């Protein structure tokens, strides 16, 4: 066991990936000389040089599309789109090229590309810089979507993502970079299954990414009131590991999905729909979710806090399902 931050874990993953495979390279805005907006890629330029750590102009559409082309051309690019907010400018390259070239070419042109982006709110950077679009990305056939929510996953998901033959999008919640945690020596190469982070029996709290710590905190608070909550970390947002989710739902018979995307059309909605399709008769209560309020995220701290999922809201939702007033 070694202790490190989510940021350091990510950086270590990059270093190992770049060292292990000459086809791997990194490109994005300010990933090199600046050291990365979130300092994830700090030092990599010195270590691997400007050929393999490339600062790009402000041209999201072109450099993401170039990542697709480079993958088609035999490389294993890691494209960092600074944040999910700016990825809207590159969505065409992801949806209309990366995600469908293998299928549309009858299997001739797979796109082994990894796209990383910071996501989420909570730092008072206001509406244009606080988006969460994991729900949108998770709805695109042809790509795999990962959301490391622990330090270990931050270290371990990049390498298997690069080994994966199809496009992989990795979401890193900006609030997690400073999170510290213990990581085991041995690596996991699992980019397909969800994980039960806290076993429980009375209510299943299904979440991922930046909401995981909040949900674990809520689970502790619930335990203090005698409510034994299970916490499921989706980890992989596409394809969803429904075996794990449904098993938890069937065991607890009550489910709250916690997700930072806006409530309407949230990723939570998809999880709920799947449960309502497949585990309807196993439920003892309506499905519930705690998502972001349907407003642009405001700058003011108290308003931003009010807009986002919080442990207290999760606790309240769980209580309601269990008919506890308090």
């Amino acid at each position, binding site marked *: 066991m070694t202790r490190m931050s989510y940021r350091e874990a990510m950086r270590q993953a990059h270093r190992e990936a770049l060292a292990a495979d000459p086809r791997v390279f990194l490109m994005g805005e300010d990933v090199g000389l600046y050291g990365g907006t979130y300092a994830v890629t700090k030092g990599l330029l010195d270590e691997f040089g400007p050929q393999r750590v490339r600062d790009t102009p402000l041209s999201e559409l072109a450099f993401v599309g170039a*990542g697709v082309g*480079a993958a088609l*051309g035999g490389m294993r690019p890691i494209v960092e789109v600074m944040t999910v907010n700016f990825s809207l400018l590159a969505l*065409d390259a992801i949806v209309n090229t990366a995600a469908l070239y293998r299928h549309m070419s*009858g299997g001739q*042109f797979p796109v082994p590309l990894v796209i990383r982006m910071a996501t989420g709110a909570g730092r008072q950077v206001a509406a244009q810089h606080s988006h969460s679009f994991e729900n949108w990305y998770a709805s695109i056939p042809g790509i795999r979507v990962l959301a490391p929510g622990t330090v270990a996953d931050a270290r371990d998901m990049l390498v298997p993502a690069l080994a994966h033959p199809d496009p992989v999008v990795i979401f890193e919640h900006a609030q997690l970079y400073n999170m510290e945690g213990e990581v085991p020596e041995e690596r996991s190469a699992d980019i397909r299954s969800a994980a039960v982070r806290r076993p429980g029996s009375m209510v299943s709290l299904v979440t991922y990414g930046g909401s995981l710590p909040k949900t674990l905190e809520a689970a502790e608070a619930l335990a203090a009131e005698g409510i034994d909550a299970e916490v499921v970390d989706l980890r992989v947002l596409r394809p969803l590991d429904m075996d794990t989710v449904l098993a938890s739902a069937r065991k607890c018979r009550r489910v709250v999905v916690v997700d930072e995307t806006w409530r309407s059309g949230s990723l939570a909605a998809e999880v709920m729909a799947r449960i309502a399709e497949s585990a309807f008769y196993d439920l003892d209560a309506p499905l519930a979710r705690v998502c972001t309020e349907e407003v642009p995220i405001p700058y003011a701290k108290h308003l931003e806090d009010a807009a986002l999922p919080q442990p207290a809201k999760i606790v309240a939702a769980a209580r309601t399902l269990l008919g506890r007033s308090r």
Partner: protein
Amino acid sequence: MIAVAPPPSGPVPYAKDQALALLRDMVRIRRFEEKCAEMYGAGKIRGFLHLYIGEEAVAVGALHALRPEDNIVATYREHGHALVRGVPMDSIMAEMYGKREGCSRGRGGSMHLFDAKTRLYGGNAIVGGGLPISVGLALADAMQGVSRVTACFFGEGAMAEGAFHESMNLAALWKLPVLFCCENNLYAMGTALARSESQTDLCVKAASYGVPTLRADGQDVVAVREAALGAQEHVRSGHGPFFVEFQTYRYRAHSMFDPDLYRDKGEVEAWKTRGPLHTFTARLKAEGKLTEEEFLALDREADAEVERAAAFAEAGTPEPTEDLARDLCAPEGAR
């Protein structure tokens, strides 16, 4: 109505074989697309169908200047490029019939011809969509020390897209081996160049990225090939990207859905006097490099190839519906 230059003329600086090879490909494209139009009417081909008729000299001249190891990125108007590149006509027609034997297994249709063997990285139906991909393909080659040119074809209309701006800058900034081939047929659907670009000199636009440029008569297969030859040499020898504007014209409507009401019929007729096939044929005959018999023979061969392709497509098998999701992702555990 834009004034039209006199028809291409003058000596053809190629040996007979080479000259006929160019003519043959132009005729193959023309006959193939005439058949496509016919089969569209017959309901065998559906969806969008964008004909290249009138523009054949561009794909033929440019691709004859390139090498088998080069990469090609094209648009939804790419039948000609696929044919010249050497994608079997059978598999192209089968694709347009939506058959499993098609070059994209029937998934793509007319706008999405793919062929790994000839390094055809697809027709792309998003205007400007191929530009960033070509930059990335060239980047991969540069990083792997492979000497290869990536030729990216796009229309003049695509030059208004942000994708063009970002891709030109990236290719020029990183000195990547991309040959930008603009097929300027003067219209983007119904929108004439002057109604969509404040600067109608496309070479001036391209030059603003510090990229060398060249303009060529796209109706003259010789002019196209010579321009492309010089340009690809520059790119191949590591001097970075090059931009060539091929001035051409489409004789048919934008697609089978286009009523073609936005241009003067006289303009179309005037451009037909510059037809890439008949003008080249005339020049070869004048030089004694082609007899009428030879032309008819070559034309018959093309017709025969087209008929074989149609028969092959007709006899093709539909992909089983159970295989709908085939090739969506790699099979489990693949690498």
